[in-house]
């Protein structure tokens, strides 16, 4: 009977895997729209308690896409921002954004935009008190490819901060 139970469990495992594999590129996950930028790392950092520190937060823009930098050249464009939720015991002094790189749409080469593409890194300056904390930030961005733009999205950026 143990064999039968194992087979049932295996079947359920495979069934779940098959269902998961059916999600398509443009389908939403049920938890909001598909993200076009990935939060790479760090998921956890350990900092000296009570002392100012800097952490580097790495993101990757999906291939073929770009997002506006923190300082787009036109007022109407949506800048990339990090929305931080400071937990008790953590003070965020500032977040530095890298400068954007120039980009022009093929249909309008004269108009240069300031964008991030590929991997980019934000520097967060913070101080953590002793203990475990979670900084639950969100990266707000608006992505385009060479011909199409997608509505602005918020990417969760949860980072466990350990002060010791």
């Amino acid at each position, binding site marked *: 009977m143990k064999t039968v139970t194992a*087979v049932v469990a295996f079947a359920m495992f495979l069934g779940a895997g098959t269902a998961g594999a059916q999600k398509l590129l443009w389908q939403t996950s049920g938890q909001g729209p598909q993200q076009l930028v990935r939060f790479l790392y760090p998921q956890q950092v350990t900092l000296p308690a009570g002392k100012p520190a800097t952490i580097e937060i790495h993101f990757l823009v999906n291939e073929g896409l770009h997002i506006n930098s923190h300082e787009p050249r036109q007022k109407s464009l949506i800048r990339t921002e990090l929305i931080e939720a400071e937990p008790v015991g953590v003070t965020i002094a500032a977040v530095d954004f890298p400068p954007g790189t120039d980009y022009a749409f093929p249909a309008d080469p004269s108009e240069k935009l300031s964008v991030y593409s590929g991997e980019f890194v934000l520097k967060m300056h913070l101080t953590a008190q002793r203990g475990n904390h979670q900084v639950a930030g969100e990266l707000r961005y608006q992505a385009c490819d060479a011909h199409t733009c997608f509505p602005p999205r918020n990417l969760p950026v949860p980072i466990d901060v350990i002060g010791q």
Partner: protein
Amino acid sequence: MRRNIFVLAALVTALALMIAAGIINFVHRRRAEEAKLRGMKMALVPDNAAAGDTPDAAAMEAAASDDDIATPLNGKTAPGFTLADLNGNKVSLASYKGRPLVVDFWATWCAPCKVEIPWFEKLHDQYASQGLEILGVSTDDLDQDDPAKLFTEKRDIADFVAKMHMNYPVLLGEDAVEDKWGIDAMPTTFFIDRSGKIVASTVGLAPREMIDADIRKAIGSGAS
């Protein structure tokens, strides 16, 4: 023992059937996905592509009609809506029935939309004698809970419209309408004939000649 073997055999069979169904389903969906991407790729050929590289409307339609995935509203009656214009007047899609119509979903933050809008202005003039109407639907977020912010957001849209010299009505989009029309990328444009049927649509910046061809299709179709 014999009973266990029977149960085991039944489970293995069920498992094999589940895996086979999953694979078939996955392959089918994968093909649908490739059809959609093909359709989008054809719609996104740069405006400055060589003439030989420019897809014609028939090829675009062929790609789009594959499994009816690329543009699911093609061939269907345009979903109705009533939206406010920049002056707060309600504008109903139904009031445009009997006239060829272009409905363009755009946003102030969408750079490719800024390339397309001047084309629409010229095409609007070019085909005015044939009854062509164009409606722009702004998909910019509007904060309905904050009157001050809402005022600023509407003013920004109005400033954009003035700066771009848009010579056709611009409506303020709503999530429910955008959901019904399947809008998740900008610009997305629908070409609607006199009977209210969507005869063509494009996602992303389409070549001007394709937009022109789609307008002519809307003008020439659906006459009663």
